[in-house]
């Protein structure tokens, strides 16, 4: 066992920190909660790309850096610590690019990977539907073969990215006769195809971070199919492991953690036993979650999709984030209810934002209940119910 980092990794972490501090100093953005999923800033993504920090783990032959998942975790951990607006490239970097590397054709790799790496391809996830949440395999969006094309009809929901994405990743049913898990395929399609309509959804925080996306007779060239036809669900399951794997599940609202600790120090509240105890407990829980997530990256570095491990780290970590928001609200008392643009709002309204937003953390990318099912059945070998 070795819980340390190599010299290069320590240097890399410092380099990332320097870059982000410089960005903040220049006033390009300020740290916010949920910036990895709600902070759409194409210029930031391009500057990150110039550093070579998108596609860090992908093979060099496709323009990646061929580095380890631990290296990527160091990068994303720092992005999250600083609340950097990385949403434009986050999804492609985290899961879609890897999926293209594994399942894509040469043509897809040549076309899409360089654009992702350059910070120019922003990919929204088209998985959930109004009637297909936890039971994702029951999705109804159809893709019907017609000559050299697929014709897509249906509706996706909770697609991140709003007006910024220029591609959609899409799960659609290509064989309605087959058992539901075995008739689904994956596509990556340009977001501006005729027949695609995006309607913003306003979430509980008032943010337009998600979209309903409607597909009406959308004609998609066959070359947009990723991997094998009708095996898309199995491919997507692996992708979900990656989607659940990361530090964003623990540190999505990290700027709040920093801010509330600082606030209690300045206000001398931190001298009180109860507050000390609560904040120390949060720190303990945070450090435990961090280890669970580093373990996930080690599993990925062994070349295995981190199924039960990512299920564990995500279920644990999102519960932590909810406790963090809850405790921050308790500490702030009546001031906690003041939203960011209100007079007297403490710590930039981060607590109340996070209190609301964190309700969704334990739902995205697999609810905690689904994750615990995965952990119990696939991790511990308990019989399926």
């Amino acid at each position, binding site marked *: *066992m*070795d*819980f*340390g*980092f190599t010299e290069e990794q320590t240097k890399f972490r410092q380099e990332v920190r320097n870059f982000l501090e410089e960005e903040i100093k220049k006033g390009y953005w300020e740290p916010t909660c949920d910036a990895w999923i709600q902070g759409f800033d194409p210029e930031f993504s391009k500057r990150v790309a110039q550093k070579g920090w998108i596609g860090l783990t992908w093979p060099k032959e496709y323009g990646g850096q061929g580095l380890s998942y*631990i290296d990527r975790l160091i990068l994303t951990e720092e992005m999250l610590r600083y609340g950097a607006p990385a949403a434009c490239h986050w999804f492609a970097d985290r899961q879609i690019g890897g999926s293209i590397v594994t399942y894509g054709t040469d043509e897809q790799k040549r076309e899409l990977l360089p654009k992702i790496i350059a910070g120019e391809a922003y990919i929204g996830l088209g998985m959930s539907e109004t009637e297909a949440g936890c039971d994702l395999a029951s999705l109804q969006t159809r893709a019907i073969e017609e000559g050299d094309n697929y014709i897509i009809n249906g509706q996706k929901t909770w697609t991140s990215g709003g007006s910024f994405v220029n591609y959609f990743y899409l799960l659609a049913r290509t064989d309605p006769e087959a058992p539901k898990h075995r008739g689904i395929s994956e596509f990556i399609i340009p977001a501006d195809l005729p027949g695609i309509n995006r309607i913003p959804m306003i979430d509980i925080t008032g943010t337009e971070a998600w979209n309903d996306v409607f597909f009406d007779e959308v004609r998609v060239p066959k070359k947009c199919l990723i991997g094998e036809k009708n095996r898309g669900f199995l491919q997507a399951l692996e992708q979900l492991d990656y989607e659940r794997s990361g530090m964003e599940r623990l540190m999505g609202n990290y700027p709040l953690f920093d801010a509330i*600790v600082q606030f*209690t*120090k300045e206000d001398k509240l*931190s*001298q009180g036993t109860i*507050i*000390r*105890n609560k*904040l*120390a*407990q949060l*720190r*303990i*829980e945070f*450090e*435990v*979650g961090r*280890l*669970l997530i*580093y*373990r996930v990256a*080690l599993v990925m570095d062994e070349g295995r999709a981190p199924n039960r491990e990512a299920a*564990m780290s995500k*279920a*644990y970590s999102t519960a932590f984030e909810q406790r963090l928001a809850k405790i921050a609200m308790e500490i702030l008392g009546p001031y906690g209810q003041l939203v960011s643009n209100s007079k007297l709002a403490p710590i930039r309204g981060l607590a109340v934002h996070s209190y609301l937003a964190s309700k969704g953390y334990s739902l995205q990318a697999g609810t905690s*209940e689904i*994750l*615990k*099912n995965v*952990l*119990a*059945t696939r*991790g*511990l*070998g*308990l*019989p*399926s*119910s």
Partner: protein
Amino acid sequence: MKLNLTEEQEMIKKTARDFLVDKCPKTFVTQMEESETGYSKELWKEMAELGWMGLAFPEKYGGGDMNFLDLAVLLEEMGRACLPGPFFSTVVLGGLPILDLGNEEQKQEYLPKLISGEKIFTLALTEPGYQNYDASSVTVEASPDGGNYIINGTKLFVPDAHIADYLLCVARTKPENGITIFLADAKNPSIDCAILKTVAGDKLCEVVFNKMPVPKANILGQLSQGSNMVQNIIERAAVGKCCEMVGNIQQVLEMTVDYAKERKQFDRPIGSFQIIQHYCADMAIDIDGARFSTYQAAWMLSEGLPCTKEVAIAKAWIGEASQRVVALAHQIHGAIGVTKEHDLHFYTRRAKAAELAFGDADFYREIVAKEMGL
């Protein structure tokens, strides 16, 4: 970063698992709980022959030249087996402090006897009314008297003192008012030792020093400079206890999952019910958190890195996590789990004792708070 065991550690683990399954069944554990001494001389000798006492000591004293991380693997297996006896006291509370603090003469004198299993050691630190696991609350006095110090006062919760040959006694030295660690002869007639009856059935003692003389030559480390040393001893003991607890709760999870697969109600295994599955998942999360935070601290100790915060995180986490784990295990096991017919009670009782040993979660949260600058 790496989280897997080395080949040698895998070997320690396997040897220990096989040996303890064979030699330390729960019937034996019960016998030891009920016996006066709390350990078997025969088993103690076999453990010494396997090189367990000496594992983390240098070869020149007869040790195995391995490190604390390797010892951590062994402690985990001992926790899994609920091994009774003075191994923890002798090695973690006695031997390793002697290795750290002793002069060469002391090491030559004591370590080979410890490693060969000939002598048993323990630490006399806590006292009546004791609040914190640090040297500041020590009141037992040691006053100079010619070539000796005279130790006077009462120590409490001293593990295995009734069978120990030597006690590391932490005392407040007069007139400097500093803390000194003495290596005292535990068989000295001016010591009264009474065994307390504990939840875990282990042997914690009340040790009364009635003006016991200890030669100055038996000071371990520097006179009156022992505060930081005591902190190091407590940190290592806390991590060692965490290692035992990782083994304990891992075994509890495995027992519970097996039970949930076998036990049928409503014509199906109870493990097929989602609520039981989620209980088990929650247990697994708590245990992996315990495992990694514990091994992180053990690794840092092994590497000689400062790790006050990491030790505090591990011990605070595992103290509460282990309570959650055994509570869920009981819920899943149902009524059989609250009887002596089933093995679960061994683990539940030890988890409670371990939670209290060397500082509970509140104690370590305060340390984390300080480390955070609160």
